[in-house]
């Protein structure tokens, strides 16, 4: 069973209107006293409302990471509205490339699952854009979000999903709060499909890097330095990989953590010697 500190998805949205349908669907509750950004939390995920813009998105993502100390295997999803000259209102797009227009820098989310919607290049701009020059999806957060998310996780687990709120026929000035809510609510199925994929990937990765079952029994009994604890974790994983179950009680004669590590190394060596003898 996962502890509350292991919620494996962090959502970053710019607007409260984008957050509401998600909070309702995923039963997210507002957390009090969590700093300058509204934070919501559910069983499997957390959501932060960053405000518009790439800097705000990056800062809010960092806030979530900093406040909750999320593991490296957590998935990150930036969700919201965007504009696209050629797309229909309400269509969902996942980014396969994000270009920051101001810096010219490119980012490449790793699409390792079958996307439930079309994918596109996202162009992150600093001001709302009404002159849609290419087939890109225009947004204001993706580049900042992605750069921050990749500092905390891996590019395969960081994605940006946008629902088209404006196009050539319907400029961004016309978009109301109610419309934003309706656009997100109408695409909850696609959003949930992406979320499920990301949660599954996060869980898979997390299970590989979960602390060995016996770790706590050792760290409770002996005082390990940070380096020693890293060595302990590695030795316990190695023993686990060869199906040996190290028990802390067997080392009760050891006074110092270093002696325990030596004992565990000896166990590994004996196992190797047994196998080499055939």
């Amino acid at each position, binding site marked *: 069973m996962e502890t509350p500190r292991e919620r494996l998805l962090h959502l970053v949205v710019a607007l409260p209107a984008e957050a509401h349908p998600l909070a309702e669907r995923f039963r997210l509750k507002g957390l009090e006293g969590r700093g300058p950004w509204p934070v919501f939390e559910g069983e499997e995920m957390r959501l932060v409302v960053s405000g518009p813009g790439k800097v705000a998105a990056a800062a809010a993502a960092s806030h979530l990471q900093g406040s909750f100390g999320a593991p490296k295997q957590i998935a990150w999803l930036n969700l919201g509205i965007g504009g696209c000259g050629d797309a229909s209102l309400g269509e969902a797009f996942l980014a396969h490339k994000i270009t920051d227009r101001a810096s010219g820098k490119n980012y490449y989310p790793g699409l390792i699952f079958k996307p439930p919607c079309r994918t596109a290049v996202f162009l992150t701009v600093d001001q709302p854009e009404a002159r849609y020059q290419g087939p890109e999806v225009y947004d204001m957060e993706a580049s900042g979000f992605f750069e921050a998310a990749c500092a905390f996780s891996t590019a395969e687990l960081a994605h940006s999903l946008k629902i088209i709120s404006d196009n050539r026929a319907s400029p961004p000035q016309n978009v109301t709060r109610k419309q934003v809510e309706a656009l997100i609510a109408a695409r909850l199925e696609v959003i949930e499909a992406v979320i499920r994929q990301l949660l599954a990937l996060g869980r898979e990765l997390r299970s590989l890097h979960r602390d060995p079952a016996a770790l706590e029994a050792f760290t409770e009994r002996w005082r390990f330095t940070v380096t020693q604890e890293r060595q302990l974790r590695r030795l316990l994983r190695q023993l686990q990989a060869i199906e040996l179950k190290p028990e802390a009680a067997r080392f009760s004669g050891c006074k110092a953590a270093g002696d325990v590590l030596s004992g565990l190394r000896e166990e590994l060596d004996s196992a*190797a010697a047994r196998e080499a003898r055939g």
Partner: protein
Amino acid sequence: MFETVYVEEAIQGHPRAKAVLKRLAGATQVTCHHFGEVFNRKAQNFRLQKRRRALILAGKRGRLVLPAPAGYGLGSRRNFYFSHLLNCPYDCRYCFLQGLYRSAHLVLFVNYEDFFRALEEEIAEAGGGSEPPCFFSGYDCDSLALEPLTGFAAAFVPFFAARPRACLELRTKSVQVKGLLELEPARNCIAAFSFTPRPLHERHEEGVPSIPRRLEALVRLQERGWPVGLRFDPLLYLEGFEAVYRDFFAAVFDRVRAENLHSVSLGNFRLPRDIHWAMAGLYPEEKLFAFGLEEREGLVSYREAVVARLLDFCQEEISKYVPEEKVFRC
């Protein structure tokens, strides 16, 4: 085959890039300035990427032909390698590429013409020396696994056939020999097939065609007159390895005509320290990396006594079928 293809902007118009993109018309195309933006960036997970690898089309710049690492070769002292492809479509747990690269995506360098120029220079430099230079094409990849897409052998075999002073090794675990069968056999182009015994193949070589299918492909090439080689590298330790390897070699040499084999090479399981560390981190549950290994001079391998037993035993078994001068240790 590939759902996403990244393409360097500069080579979008290259005929080979166009041909590959035409074959992968259903894939999402994403442009990039330089393949390293996708392939070499930090914050990516090799293991996750294997679920859905992308192809990256790029142009190779800098040094295209490099001296082979020490110990890599077939008797010649002038060994080089070049890589038209980085990474491999198969998933062999022991393969060092997993620890070498940050990304599991495959990079195809489409500018074969630049490789030809670089190879020509190396061959010219070798001149009429007593030892012909040998070029290895399967160091960073499988030479033939993507042949229908890359046309690598179709392009490079005629190049080497016209330069008989040099030799080319195509190293593979694939059964992609159709292209070679359509070409005239070239005496200086060796199709070298890598094998491990069945229990190890089943445990460690995901996606690799079965041993009988690969032996069939090798035999077809041999019958057509192609020089073929056998590569037993890495030799992996397992309990009762003697019986496993004895039976395995017997089965292999039952199919392969040993008398006109070009060469057999064998090498123990060894990884540079940093690469071993990266691989063990990717697969914390993998027994292969968990125990029985030790570091000697920067290389992680089995203990010396185990290496000696494994190599000596296998070499002795192979010598029952193949003359000594054709067997090389790597």
